[in-house]
């Protein structure tokens, strides 16, 4: 009987050791590949009260202009479609204004006072946000390049430049100030999402200050715009 118990204890001890070893391996594998647990990022997102200004569960909730104006910050339920992962983690660490104007304001400048996260928080929240997707964006659709047709639409035919800043000729920042800046947008935004956003505005932002271009621009022209904007990157020195 004593022998049996000892044998049982021994097996139990072996099992505990095995479990701990497997756990450590998984943890090390996650750390070595840089993959964190989105749930951990979600916990930080809540703890840092990001939820006060950003909602993270789709689908889009806005049905009226008032709904949109009530929001304090952009919705993030499709952040994983919209952003580039490296940019997002870097921005959370050191947030710089994306919009010239304060969110939902035409009179107040953006004060650039978005809270920053420490390196660990930024990495884990970034992982969490990149896990949020809509299922409406087809990967690998848009080829980013110097797209003259996209440029023509962006600056002349349906001038996105009227509301969005971009780097114009001679590296001068040009364009309007009511929309988010698109300077170096190719580093920030996923070009496939830009196309999806133009094609399916009701999915991502049913109420927004930007006109709906569905029925005005062909899918091909929208892809040209996405390709052109996706190529907005810092010039190599």
């Amino acid at each position: 009987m004593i022998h049996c118990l000892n044998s049982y204890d021994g097996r139990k001890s072996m099992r505990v050791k095995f479990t701990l070893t497997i756990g450590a391996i998984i943890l090390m594998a996650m750390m070595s590949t840089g993959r964190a647990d989105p749930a951990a990022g979600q916990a930080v997102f809540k703890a840092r009260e990001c939820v006060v200004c950003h909602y993270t569960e789709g689908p889009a909730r806005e049905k009226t202009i008032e709904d949109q104006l009530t929001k304090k910050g952009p919705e993030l339920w499709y952040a994983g479609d919209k952003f580039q992962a490296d940019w997002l983690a870097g921005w959370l660490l050191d947030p710089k204004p994306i919009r010239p104007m304060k969110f939902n304001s035409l009179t107040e400048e953006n004060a650039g006072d978005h809270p920053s996260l420490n390196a660990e928080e930024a990495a884990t929240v970034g992982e969490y946000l990149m896990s949020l997707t809509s299922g409406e964006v087809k990967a690998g659709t848009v080829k980013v390049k110097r797209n003259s047709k996209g440029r023509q639409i962006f600056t002349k035919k349906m001038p996105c430049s009227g509301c969005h800043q971009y780097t114009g000729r001679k590296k001068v920042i040009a364009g309007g100030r009511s929309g988010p800046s698109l300077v170096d947008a190719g580093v920030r935004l996923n070009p496939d999402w830009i196309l999806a956003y133009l094609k399916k505005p009701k999915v991502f932002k049913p109420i927004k200050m930007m006109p709906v271009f569905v029925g005005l621009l062909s899918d091909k022209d929208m892809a040209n715009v996405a390709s052109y904007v996706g190529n907005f990157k810092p010039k190599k020195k």
Partner: protein
Amino acid sequence: MIMKKTTIVAGLAGIICHLLVAPVSASDTQTVYKFYCAQCHGLGGKGDGPNVTKDFPVSPRNFTDAAEMNKLSDADMKNVILDGGPSASKSPMMPPWGKTLTGEEVDGLVKHLRTLCKCEGKKS
């Protein structure tokens, strides 16, 4: 009893009729204007929204300029709102809002612009 029922039916019919024919309220139209138009035309309609920087290629229309606004009919304004500046040989910086706004919102905006210019405009 019959009188009471008749009164209720008449009351309900009145409410339904009111809902069907009620125009967009002024506050709704002002909200629409502030949300979509003011970014270029300014909250007061003077053509001085935040998009109008020194390199903005055209001057958005000043809706308070009665002399200029009187040159346009309501139909002219409606067309430009729906189809954009090029539909009236004007700048494409005025985008087409026909796929964004409802007909009711566009009609409301035209009326709102007339209150800004305090003018009746060209009769079409």
